[in-house]
Every structure is written in structure tokens, then in C-alpha cells.
């Protein structure tokens, strides 16, 4: 993790550090020197650097120097990373220089995996440096000892800040930093990030008072340009698919030609399929593995261990490996399917080759012709240094509720002081007092207009004006339930002998019946039965269905979408494309039209007794899914008898029994007022969001002590609570919080609203006599997704009954 040669003359470093650098033949890099200089000047600092630039050490050097020059007892530096594994990894990498320098600096980790006796000891006798996660830090702040423990704190270092600053975990950390600043007023903040588009946004996030210019901006040295190729077997791109599965043979050849290859997939189910495909091409039986967030912890640890020991040649992975843990000497990164965004692509590529002076090698395998254009766009964007937008949002209220409860568990508080403190956290800088008071009321007694629970208050205001918890059991309850990640209810996947393979979402499990088969953990599995929270399976040789994981997907970023739109229209770009992509575009132009970058092309055509409408809106999958629901609803109102819709990142296709003569009314902005509200409120989206805010906000408990920790353990049906609340108190704080989540994260309403706003001006409608080339990639999805409308639930039950009756008939 340290950089070699070509450095900066060392600033006045303590001799022991200077000697250590010299002993290794290293010199201080410029950004390392600048981080130390910022620290010595008492300034907060943001380091922007690509992976492999001695980044972590750059963050810690100032603290090591300070501890040498001014030895102290107690906690000096707090390091926060988004991943437990990263905290452990950093500890290992930090201990090496500290030991070699012969320093008496204690470094410990504290995560959810830390045994409770060690946690208690850490509170009583903290190490000099503590490496932790936002959730564990928040828990620490809920103990009365927090005040003494953090009083000596000098520095907080936040790693991989790009990965979580604009999320709920970032909200929690921002609030925790506001509290730390109060416990240790001299606290200095440092953060490390991969290259981002808007460093000033991150400086503002880091700043204790919103003054981004006060935060020093340190830039790492640019590494060698990555060497990225698009892999096209026989120079052809398929019509459909989104995974690049057709290229398994070529991908396997790449693995054979490299030491260690990471194969990134966009979804867990895809990772399972790709692993199967590679395995069947693996004639030399090379050691390859699969790694994703639904596998059991043991299974993941095993793979990570094998990778670190150099026992693996290839690893199929998802975003679970996105962040910078060093598990091995990766020399090639392959992206299966579309990269979705240039920043993400760069971060993934950064996993190959942690040395700056050598180019990272990467390969993209586009799954279809649109994905080819997207891959080309991503390459251009990387070349030009254009990164994805960072999407900032106001801090979430459920997170705020959790934080305030944590503070109440630690010590009594004054509401005015706390409100002022919270406003120093960037995501809450503009929080209105009234909203703060609503959150306080929520924590106190549920936040209901009807003050039904005044006699059961969890926190009460004393005669001294301070708020405190009304019973110690509420502190215990809080610590059991705190946390930001609310997993969807899951079932354990097990063999009959009890061995656990991992988990699948209950939703997916509910679609399985005994005898069904699916890919999981690199195996084809047959369902034997479901009992309580276990899905029992056996290995099978039968072909398998795909596991489905519900939830929002990473959508195509706006900058790549804009580039793809430009490709369609600018013919001089086509020279770079393979012949079949050029031909695809040329015939499209002849038979229909290629829209200009600012136009919304809508095509309608009949096919096999149905009528199709395809809109090329390029707003990403999440926005398109929402649009599909809205448009088919409106088609129903207009008597067009819609049957269903499908979408991908680029287009949406609706099909109906009657033709759409004029698509304009379907894309009018009032759809957002009329159909949207109704749809979001009745769909599972809002209920899903509500479940999350109800748990994070502390309305309901997620863990019952002594029971297994599955998502099932939420003791109540949050759907029922949602229904009651929506009827009797539609303005309740948790409903507002759920609404914000559903609107932003799950449906991408912002992009949808922009699209509908532009639609009347930019729409170009082509009525065709048959399907156009551009429509093929989205239409082939039909049959893989279903849409249910109206009284479909009743119809399903009626059908199920008649099937059962038919099957049971004896004559």
C-alpha cells in the first residue's frame, strides 16, 4: 500500500518515520506530505486518489507522527470504513509499519463481529487507534462512557467516503461526527475517496460547519491510464441478453492467460449463471470461485482466504467486492454486461494492479447492442475523465431518530443544544426545527397526533429541562435494534444435513415449489421443501431457473445515457463500431428514425395480434419500471387493454390489445400527479420502504434476544401497521420518510419527472408496420417479466382453485 520512489522531500517527520521510509528505499509521496501538512496546520482534509496510491497510509501518517511527538493515553484516532473486512484489512496493513518502527501504538478493530468482552474493555481502556464502521461507532456513542472515551480524540479518518456519504449510512456517520466534535472540540477530520466528480460536495459533507473551502483538497498522483478493451467474440454483438454469457469461452481464455482475474457481474443471479457458464468451459479445471452478498459468511470467508493465499485463478463477484480490500494480486478485471457508469467502472478496474506506474488491465463484455454502445460510451468517458454525478439528498429522518435515541441512551440532553449540534451535520444542515421536534416526539411516544402513549414515554423531559430515557431497558432495546441495513426477509438455503449455503429472499422462495431448480452458490439446486426459515435443497444435474433478487438496480448513469444518445445520431462515430452494430443502426435509420440526442422516439407497431409501443427514453431501469406501471395504468383507463410492459436501461415497451394511436397523452406530466401517487401508495414499493424506516426509526424491534436473526423476526406485519397509519395519520413522520425513500431510491422520480416534462416538446412518433431494429433488445425481454393489474389477485386464486380441482378429479 505504500508507494515507491519518486516522492517529495519529507516534511519535518519524526526521525523514526523518516528512517523507516529510508530503510525501505521509499520516499514520502506528494499527497502523503500534503496530508501531513494539512494535519499539522490543524486543517480538515479530503484526499482524492485512485486505488493503489498509498492512500490509507497517507491518512494515518499524521496520527502516527503526532503520537510519536506527543504520546498520550486514550483514543487518538478513529478510522471509519464502510466494510468490516476493510477495517480488519487496514489493521493488518497498519500494524506492519507500526511494528517495524518499534512504536508502542495500540490499534484495534471494533465491528459487529468483535466479542462483547473486548468491546467492554475497549470502552474502559480504549486503544490509541480504533478502526470501526458507522454502525459500531453509533453504538459506541450510545454508552455513557462515550464522553470520557472520546474526550482525547484528535483525528477521525473516513475511508471510501464516495461509497457511502450520500446514503443513510453516511447520514448516520455525519451525525456521529457532529457528536464527536462536541465531545472533542479540537477533532480534525480527514477523508479518503476514490476519484469523484464533485470533490467540493464531499468537502462540504466532511466539513463541521458547511464551509467546504476550509477543508484542504489533496489530490493523489494520477496513475497510468487503464488499458480497457471491449471483448467481442468473432467481432459480433448479440441482439439480446444483458450478461455477455455468450462469451464464456473467451472469458475463460482470459482467465487462463492471467494470474488472477476478477469477473464482475451486475447482479447476484447473473454471478451464479456466469460461474456456471465458466465452469462448463473450464477444461483445465482451474480453481475459480464465486462471491456475492447472499452467500453465507463462511462461504465468503473461504473464497476470500483462497484469494489472499493465491489459490484462485478467477473469481466471479458482484458489488460485494467493489471496495478496496486487498485480497490478492489481481491482474485483470472483466466487467460482464453493461458498466452502468464511468465512476463505477473505474473503481472496479482499480481492483486490478495496485501499483500506480503500471496500467490496470480491464475487459468489458457487452451483452447486447445497446450495451455495446454503453461500453463504448464508458470507455470514452474514462478516457476523457468524465465521472458520474454524485447524487446528494437531505438526511433521512429515520436515521435521525435512531441517532437521537442513541444519544439519549448515553446521557441526558437539552433539545436546543442537540438541534444546533445536528444542524452541523451536512445532510441535516437545513433541518427545520419543526421537523426536529416531530422526530423527538416520535422517539418519545411514537409521534402520534393523538397523545395516546403519554404514559409509556421512552424519553421524558425532566424539571431541569433535559430529556432522558425513562427506563434502562430502552437503552438495551436500542442497542439490540440499532443499525441502518434492514435486510429483506430471507430464508436460509440448506442441505438436509443442515449445512447452510446462504440465503434467498423470502419473496423469491415464495415462488418456489418442491421440484423447482435454481442456481445458487455455483450449484444447481432442487427444492425439497420449506420449513420455517429454511429452504431445503439437494444438488441436482437438472437445468435450473434463475434466482431472483428483488430491489432497485443500479441504473445507467445520466452521463453515459447522454453519450449513447449522441452515438445514435452522429454517424461519424459509427466507424468505430463493429459491422453488425453499424448495420443495426443503419437499418433502423432507414425503417424508422434515429432520434436526435434531445428527442424522445416512440414507435408503435402491430405484431402477432398485439399492439406494441416502444419509447427510447434512456432514463435507466428504475425510472422505466415506474413509468411502465404508470403508463399501463393510464392505458387501462383509456380502454386500450394493456397486457403488460417490459423495460431495460434504454427503453420501455408496452403491449396491448388495442393500438396506441397517439402516445402523447400517455406521456403527459400530469401522470405524475394522478397515477403516480396512487400507484406508489398501493404498490409494494412504499410498504417495503415503510418496513425499512419502521425498523431504522425504532418503531418496531427487529431482534428478539435469543432468537435467530432473520428478517422474519420483525414481530409485526409492517404492512398492516402501514395500512392503519395511512388511514388514520397520513402525515406521520415515518410515512413521510418512507415516501422520500420510495420516491428517490426506488423509483428515480427525479429522472422520470424530467423525462415527462420534456416529452411534449421532444416526442417523435413513428407508426410502423412491423418491429424496428432498435426495438428488438427490449422486446425479447417479454415473457420474462409479468405485470399484474386490477383484480389479478382474485383471478390467480380462482385459477389456482380450478387447477387443483382439475388435478384432483378422479373420473
Amino acid at each position, binding site marked *: 500500500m505504500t508507494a515507491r520512489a519518486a516522492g517529495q522531500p519529507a516534511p519535518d517527520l519524526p526521525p523514526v518515520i523518516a528512517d523507516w521510509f529510508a530503510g525501505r528505499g521509499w520516499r514520502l509521496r506528494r499527497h502523503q506530505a500534503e496530508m501531513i501538512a494539512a494535519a499539522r496546520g490543524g486543517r480538515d482534509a479530503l484526499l482524492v486518489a485512485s486505488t493503489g496510491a498509498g492512500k490509507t497510509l497517507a491518512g494515518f501518517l499524521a496520527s502516527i507522527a503526532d503520537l510519536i511527538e506527543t504520546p498520550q493515553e486514550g483514543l487518538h484516532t478513529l478510522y471509519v470504513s464502510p466494510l468490516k473486512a476493510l477495517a480488519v484489512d487496514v489493521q493488518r496493513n497498519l500494524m506492519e509499519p507500526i511494528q517495524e518502527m518499534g512504536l508502542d501504538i495500540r490499534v484495534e478493530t471494533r465491528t459487529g463481529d468483535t466479542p462483547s468482552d473486548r468491546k467492554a474493555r475497549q470502552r474502559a481502556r480504549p486503544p490509541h487507534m480504533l478502526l470501526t464502521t458507522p454502525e459500531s461507532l453509533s453504538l459506541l456513542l450510545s454508552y455513557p462512557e462515550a464522553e470520557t472515551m472520546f474526550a482525547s480524540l484528535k483525528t477521525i479518518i473516513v475511508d471510501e467516503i464516495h461509497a457511502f456519504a450520500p446514503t443513510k449510512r453516511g447520514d448516520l456517520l455525519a451525525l456521529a461526527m457532529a457528536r464527536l466534535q462536541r465531545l472533542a472540540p479540537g477533532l480534525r477530520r480527514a477523508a479518503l475517496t476514490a476519484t469523484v466528480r464533485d470533490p467540493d460536495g464531499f468537502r462540504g459533507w466532511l466539513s463541521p460547519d458547511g464551509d467546504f473551502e476550509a477543508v484542504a483538497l489533496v489530490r493523489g498522483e494520477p496513475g497510468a491510464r487503464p488499458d480497457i478493451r471491449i471483448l467481442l467474440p468473432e467481432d459480433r454483438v448479440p441482439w439480446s441478453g444483458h450478461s455477455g454469457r455468450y462469451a464464456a469461452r473467451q472469458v475463460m481464455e482470459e482467465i487462463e492467460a492471467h494470474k488472477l482475474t476478477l469477473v464482475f457481474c451486475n447482479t447476484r443471479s447473473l454471478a451464479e449463471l456466469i460461474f456456471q457458464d465458466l465452469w462448463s468451459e473450464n477444461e483445465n479445471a482451474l480453481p475459480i470461485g464465486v462471491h456475492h452478498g447472499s452467500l453465507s459468511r463462511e462461504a465468503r470467508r473461504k473464497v476470500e482466504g483462497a484469494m489472499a493465499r493465491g489459490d484462485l485463478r478467477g473469481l466471479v463477484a458482484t458489488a460485494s467486492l467493489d471496495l478496496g480490500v486487498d485480497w490478492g494480486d489481481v491482474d485483470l478485471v472483466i466487467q460482464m454486461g453493461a458498466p452502468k457508469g464511468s465512476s463505477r467502472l473505474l473503481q472496479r478496474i482499480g481492483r486490478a494492479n495496485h501499483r500506480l506506474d503500471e496500467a490496470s488491465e480491464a475487459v468489458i463484455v457487452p451483452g447486447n447492442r445497446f450495451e455495446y454502445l454503453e461500453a463504448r460510451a464508458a470507455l470514452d468517458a474514462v478516457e476523457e475523465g468524465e465521472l458520474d454525478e454524485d447524487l446528494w439528498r437531505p438526511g433521512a429522518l429515520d436515521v435521525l431518530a435512531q441517532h437521537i435515541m442513541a444519544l439519549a441512551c448515553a446521557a441526558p440532553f437539552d433539545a436546543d443544544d442537540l438541534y444546533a449540534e445536528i444542524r452541523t451535520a451536512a445532510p441535516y444542515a437545513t433541518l427545520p426545527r419543526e421537523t426536529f421536534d416531530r422526530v423527538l416526539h416520535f422517539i418519545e411516544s*411514537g409521534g402520534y397526533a393523538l397523545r395516546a402513549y403519554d404514559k409509556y414515554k421512552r424519553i421524558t423531559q425532566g424539571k431541569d429541562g433535559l430529556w432522558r430515557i425513562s427506563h434502562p431497558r430502552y437503552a438495551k432495546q436500542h442497542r439490540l435494534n440499532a443499525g441502518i441495513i434492514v435486510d429483506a426477509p430471507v430464508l436460509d438455503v440448506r442441505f438436509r444435513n443442515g449445512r447452510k449455503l446462504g440465503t434467498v429472499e423470502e419473496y423469491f422462495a415464495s415462488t418456489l415449489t418442491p421440484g423447482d431448480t435454481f442456481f445458487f452458490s455455483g450449484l444447481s439446486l432442487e427444492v425439497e421443501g420449506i420449513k420455517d426459515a429454511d429452504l431445503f435443497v439437494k444438488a441436482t444435474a437438472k437445468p435450473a431457473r434463475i434466482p431472483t433478487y428483488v430491489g432497485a438496480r443500479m441504473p445507467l448513469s445520466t452521463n453515459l445515457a447522454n453519450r449513447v444518445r449522441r452515438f445514435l445520431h452522429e454517424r461519424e462515430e459509427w466507424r468505430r463500431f463493429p459491422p453488425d452494430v453499424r448495420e443495426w443502426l443503419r437499418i433502423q435509420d432507414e425503417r424508422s428514425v434515429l432520434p436526435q440526442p434531445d428527442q424522445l422516439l416512440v414507435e408503435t407497431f402491430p405484431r402477432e395480434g398485439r399492439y406494441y409501443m416502444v419509447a427510447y427514453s434512456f432514463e435507466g431501469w428504475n425510472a422505466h419500471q415506474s413509468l411502465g406501471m404508470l403508463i399501463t395504468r393510464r392505458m387501462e383507463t383509456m380502454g386500450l387493454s394493456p397486457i403488460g410492459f417490459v423495460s431495460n436501461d434504454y427503453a420501455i415497451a408496452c403491449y396491448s390489445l388495442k393500438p396506441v394511436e397517439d402516445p402523447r397523452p400517455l406521456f403527459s406530466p400530469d401522470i405524475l400527479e394522478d397515477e403516480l401517487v396512487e400507484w406508489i401508495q398501493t404498490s409494494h414499493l412504499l410498504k417495503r420502504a415503510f418496513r425499512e424506516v419502521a425498523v431504522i426509526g425504532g*418503531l418496531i424491534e427487529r431482534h428478539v434476544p435469543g432468537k435467530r436473526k432473520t428478517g422474519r423476526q420483525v414481530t409485526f406485519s409492517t404492512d398492516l401497521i402501514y395500512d392503519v397509519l395511512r388511514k388514520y*395519520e397520513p402525515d406521520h413522520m415515518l410515512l413521510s420518510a418512507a415516501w422520500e425513500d420510495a420516491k428517490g431510491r426506488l423509483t428515480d422520480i427525479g429522472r422520470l419527472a424530467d423525462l415527462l416534462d420534456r416529452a411534449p416538446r421532444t416526442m417523435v412518433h413513428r407508426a410502423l408496420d412491423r418491429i424496428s431494429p432498435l426495438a428488438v433488445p427490449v422486446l425479447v425481454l417479454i415473457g420474462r417479466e409479468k405485470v399484474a393489474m386490477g383484480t389479478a389477485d382474485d383471478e*390467480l386464486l380462482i385459477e*389456482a382453485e380450478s387447477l387443483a380441482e382439475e388435478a*384432483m378429479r378422479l373420473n
Partner: protein
Amino acid sequence: MVPLSFCGHDLVPLPDGAVFWPARRALLVADLHLEKASWFARSGQMLPPYDSLKTLEDLEGVIDAAGAREIWCLGDSFHDREGCDRLPADARSLLESLTARTQWTWITGNHDPGFSATCGAAVVEEAEVDGLLLRHEADPRETRPELSGHFHPKLRVRLRGRGVSRRCYVASERKIILPAFGALTGGLDAQSRAILRAMGGPAAALVPTRDRLLRFPLAA
């Protein structure tokens, strides 16, 4: 609304989860679990304090639509025996008006044994009405026709990759288990062993829709 012939009586299992008995103009409901939310609020889980109001408003709707004069609540009407005393004012006055204008009987359950009905109406442990036994929990050894609650049966159906989960009735020749009527009550799979054991013989899950009564045989 499709009637079900049960031991010589015509009963109508309604989609809302109550059984209407036209001959007596009686309505049977089970497991209202009133004041479940406030019971949990005492331990710090501040569920919306509107569950009783919601449940009673729903019940009022069913009573009025059916024109019922007689109400039988088959136990666990309150989530705990003090529930009746915690009713918020609006729910209490609604309940009082309902008990005043109908002939209302509380049958006690395991959640509310021996509660004192401060909201009016009689409290009994079980009742036999025109030969039908009404009680909270089914007794597998009972030979008389019996209607009960307690289990909160729910049916899950999967077809073509989609799933539906509904409150349902479980019925056999001589037994009917009603679904839970309460707004915050969860459910137990109708296939579960506990329910099949209580039925003591072949049984089916019944799901009323607007114009049909769907019947799903349960594995014995």
C-alpha cells in the same frame, strides 16, 4: 355472497372475515385483538394507536351491510385482559354504541381470560346457539358442530411465479375456524400442523371472493 351449508344451517362466510348467519341475523367474528398496539407501546414499541378504531369501524361496516342484530365475538377480542380499559375515547364510544344497538356477546379467549367488559355486553366462556357450539379454540374431540377462532388461518397460493396470501376460513364437516378480524393481527398458514390437528380430520381452506366461495383442500 355464497352460503355454506353447515350441519343443517346456512352460514355465509364473508370476504371481510366474519360469518353471517341469516336465520338469526347474527354475525360471528374472531380475534379482534383490540388494543394490541397499546399493549406493545407499554414495552416501547409505539405502534399506531388506531388499531381498535380501525377494527371497530370495519366491524361496524360489516354489521350495517349485513343488517346484523346479534354479534358473537369468538375470543381474543382484546389483546390482553386490561385492553378494554385502555380503549381510546373514540373507539370506546363506537364500541359502546355498537353493543347498545345489537345483542352482543363476548366469548373469552386465551389473551383475554376473565376480562371485565366495561364496554357493555355479556361475557361467557362458550355458548351453544341453535345446536352450534361457539368457542375460542377448537377442540379436536368435540363431536357437536363447532365454530371457533384462535389460529388466525391464512392461505398462501403460488402460481406462475406469483404468490397471494389471504386470511381464510378452515372448514370441515363439523368445524369452522374463522380468520382473525383485527387490524393488526398476523396469520398462521392454513396448512400448519396446529390447525390440521385442531380440525381432527379432512379439512379445506375457504376463501370467499365477491361472487364465489373458493375451496382449497388441505393435506391431512
